[in-house]
């Protein structure tokens, strides 16, 4: 359940910028292979938001497709799971996307 810690980090990042202004929406970018359970983050978020500027805010999660480039044959491909090899059989790959875990933006009430 490292997602509890992740959710706390999200709230801390948002509240640091929001100050006392109520946050209405937080947008999170999560790569398919980021190693976090989105359901667990969305479960934890309202709990750790309670009593902060994030209280009641919606959490939008944008999933980012995992893509990789094969160092053996140079092909680019969608990496369906962490250990997926290139169609040429090589596991020697460069991860291009799908490992993101970023707070993208927030929406506040207009001042």
């Amino acid at each position, binding site marked *: 359940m490292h997602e509890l810690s992740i959710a706390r980090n999200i709230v801390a990042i948002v509240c640091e910028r929001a100050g006392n202004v109520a946050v209405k929406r937080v947008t999170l970018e999560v790569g398919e292979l980021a190693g976090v359970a989105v359901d667990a983050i969305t479960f934890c978020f309202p709990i750790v938001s309670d009593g902060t500027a994030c209280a009641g805010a919606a959490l939008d999660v944008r999933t980012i497709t995992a893509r990789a480039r094969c160092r053996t044959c140079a092909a680019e491909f969608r990496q369906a799971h962490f250990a997926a090899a290139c169609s040429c059989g090589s596991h020697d790959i460069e991860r291009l996307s799908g490992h993101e875990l970023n*707070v993208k933006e927030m929406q506040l009430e207009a001042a």
Partner: protein
Amino acid sequence: MCATCGCTPSGVATLVRTHDHSHENGHTHENGQVHDHVHPHDVLDATDLRTIALERAVLAKNDALAGANRRWLDDRGIVALNLVSSPGSGKTSLLERTIRDLRAHVPLVVIEGDQATENDAARIRAAGARALQVNTGTGCHLEADIIRRALDALEPVDDSVVMIENVGNLVCPALFDLGEYSKVALLSVTEGDDKPAKYPYLFAAADLFIITKIDLLPYVDFDIAACIAHARAVRPGLEVIALSARTGENLAAWYRWIHEARAVSV
């Protein structure tokens, strides 16, 4: 613009429809009244939200603290190893044996992470090394700020080794940089040779993979070659040492690895 009735901050209603909301300046409309008048007030609603770009890595704070730990350790020639595995893989047993074998030559301290009890720190002290027990309570992994406080408490000497025994967990510790020189993943032969495929994140983050309890191989169905193949599918080129802390088999390879890590960091 007010999403309910369409009135704008400049006071001009651009949308005409029936509504029953109230406004912040105190005036109200009777239910069902058509809104076609001019009124000077700022109306806040869903469409009046400010969007602020943040573009921050969720774990940026931990990563920054880990970076500071790494610089602090590097400046002192200290090698910190973050030992990660499921509970019961033999992390503490390997550390006890390592301390007994190396303590005459290598200054070594241990940070012990567990949800509860001082048991492991007590075992490490009995083996002859200083140890600090960190109880994470409900926490399933160690984070960089915990390591900072532990380093302040333990005050490891220059050119020493700090062993960090993470909370037994094959999942969560993978994401959290502590500032270590390397993550070392451990797996015992009683756990199943496909664990690196099932829990790829930890093995992908490791620089060394130690297969423990190989003295038990005759009694279990554990295919070392298959296990290594699973690990290298997620981490090509991963270094692997299969050993037994009980019999001492192949411990020399582990000690050589520590020696080489120290040589690099001095």
